[in-house]
């Protein structure tokens, strides 16, 4: 499944990153590495972006970018 569709409270692992290589690199830099555990903390009041917890910190990701992150439930 896709990070974009994860409900608040979802816990899982990053599986695969897709999309253009610039985006991939940026996602990796920010810690979205395949195998990493993460949690969906909340949606912004206007439903986009979403906030995840990964590597012990909080990161806001737009749904547009989250669509390129495939995840699996932990």
């Amino acid at each position: 499944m896709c990070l974009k569709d994860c409900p608040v409270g979802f816990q899982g692992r990053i599986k695969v990153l897709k999309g253009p290589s610039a985006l991939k690199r940026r996602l990796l830099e920010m810690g979205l590495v395949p195998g990493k555990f993460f949690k969906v903390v909340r949606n912004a009041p206007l439903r986009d972006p979403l906030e995840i917890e990964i590597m012990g910190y909080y990161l806001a990701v737009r749904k547009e970018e989250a669509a390129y992150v495939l995840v699996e439930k932990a």
Partner: protein
Amino acid sequence: MKEVKIALAGNPNAGKTTIFNALTGAKQKVGNYPGVTVERKEGFFRLGDLRVRVIDLPGTYSLTSYSPEEVIARRVIVEEKPEVVVDIVDASNLERNLYLTMQLFELGVPVVLVLNMMDDAKKKGLQIDVKRLSEKLGIPVIPMVGHKRIGLDELLATLEKILKGEFRPVPNGVLFYPPEVHREIERLEKFIVSEGRDLSGYPPRWLALKALEGDEEVLRFLREKAQLNGKLDEVLAQARKALRERLGDEPESILAEARYLSIQEILKDVLKKTPRKTLTDYIDAVVCHRILGIPIFILVMTLMFQAVYSWSAPFMEWIDAFFAWLGGVVAGLLGEGLLKSLIVDGIIGGVGGVLVFLPQIVILFFLISLLEDSGYMPRAAFVVDRLLKPLGLNGKSFVPLLSSFACNIPGIMATRTIENYRQRLLTILAAPFMSCSARLPIYTLLIGAFIPDQKIFGFFNLKGLVLLAIYLTGILAGVVTILVFKALVFRGEPSPFLMELPPYRLPTLKSVLIHMWNRAVLYVRKAGTVILAISIIMWALFSFPQNPTLSKDYEALMAAATSEEERLVIANQEAAERLSKSYAGRFGKFIEPVLKPLGFDWRIGIALTSAFAAKEVLVATLGQIYALGEVGEEDVSLLESIRKDPVFNPVTAIGLMLFSLLMMPCMATLPVIKMETGSWRWPALVTLWTLSIAWSVTFVWVRFLGPLFF
């Protein structure tokens, strides 16, 4: 005294600035790197008998070539060769922060690791074995709490040892790439060493690694400077293909994963976690709340706008009053004449015109520092991001655009908080359309004169509706500008929006004050001088020629006048004629043909010319043209004069409001745009673009839309 150089590197939000401030105090120099709008911050401090120059590198998450900040950071490290790079990491977010550290290791430079915000780490339930970490990495690791100066002495002592040559903190080989990657890097490295011409001090191993990652900058460097033209692509394509076949992924992903695997290995027996909820979690539960988030955002923004808009007013009045007083004193000393006019109206008026913006700049940056340092700013961006996304901007553009309604100058300066250059430029291009407070007197005058005090649907006041429509037109023009330039000039991939939400922290007064001070100095030094020069030119345009041929002998009339009132009328008439015969007045007449289709005549041409000095001056100039002397926007005589003037009717009055709203920003804004974009190209473009928009919109209104309404 011997001077040595060190550099501070680190992620944004790692507290780099706090440590920079703690090291250098107020001895800082802020400027831009040549050719780009990345801020260069330098400071000095003494260490024994050494003078240490500290370069505060831009905060980055990585050292790729995707953003100018990252390119600058690595260029400074390699080309300016600091003795040591102090890598400041957020101890409460160690794993991700070490990603940059790994890339510093790849560069092979001496590194000292500072674990900042140890207190946050403890609150979060993290235990870090500092000694073990230092042993593993082979470099000094110093735990610190920057804003409390904890650990500062240890950092200084360590730096002193290194700078005196007692040891070189070269990291152990802690980075493990898969053997296949290793082999390809080695092969590329050999190729670069044997075939490359000039490597300019870049380590060949690093060049090989980056080339493998497909780093555009490095590839260009290898082709042009190292002259590895034809063969490079071949060798590289081979290597990338080999990796893709064996490891099933692109080299950039493989390398990034390898770095994180190395970090995991390093942290294995160093970091222990017993995760706890922190204050940040509780605050965010409210501040980013589904329902409460937006009202809180609106409240904070209202307070901020209110502060910039009204708190600055008394200070601005004092500055105005002071320069008026100074002008009066100097005028008394000099007596009538050209010199008096130059010094009083040109220079003193000009300096006052520069400094009058300082209160707004200082107050806005005081609040921005508070919001940034406390951590609310990224939350604000998180909350409104969705609204700005369709424009290709992100939430960080909100504050600059909002501030522009008070004054475009601090608003444009506030775009520095936007990391992405493209988004910063788009925001700067739209800012001048936000109706600043200096435009309000124009609306007050024209609405007061022409819009009837009439109720629409029982409770909307027509005057208020027209004012609202004017402001909305400005916003709409800004939106159109962003969309047009996004499509025309800034095509290509949008930068992904990934924003860290750092823990909330109590801002320190020192940081806030230093930030404020740096901004004020930057404005006065970089923009102030140009503004002063332009205002002297404007003065000259309005004051020359000195002795035009006048239509009447005003001196004789004056002598014949019997009453004080009569004399005043004559003096005002003379002033009006002199104004129309000045170069600026002639310019106003010269542009009349362009303004004719809008229903404006040469007098409005002169008024608009003067509005370039500062928008509100338009009102005073109209007063002068109608030979009324010095009048304000609510002066009855001015209201009556323009009402009687056949040029004006409700349609042209609104047309003039639209034109003054949309035309180029005042002369003080253009140098600020230059300062923030790094080139005169952008203020030039803003001038052309805003004038075209102003003309077209006014034309459509006066010719087609207006007559439908009035």
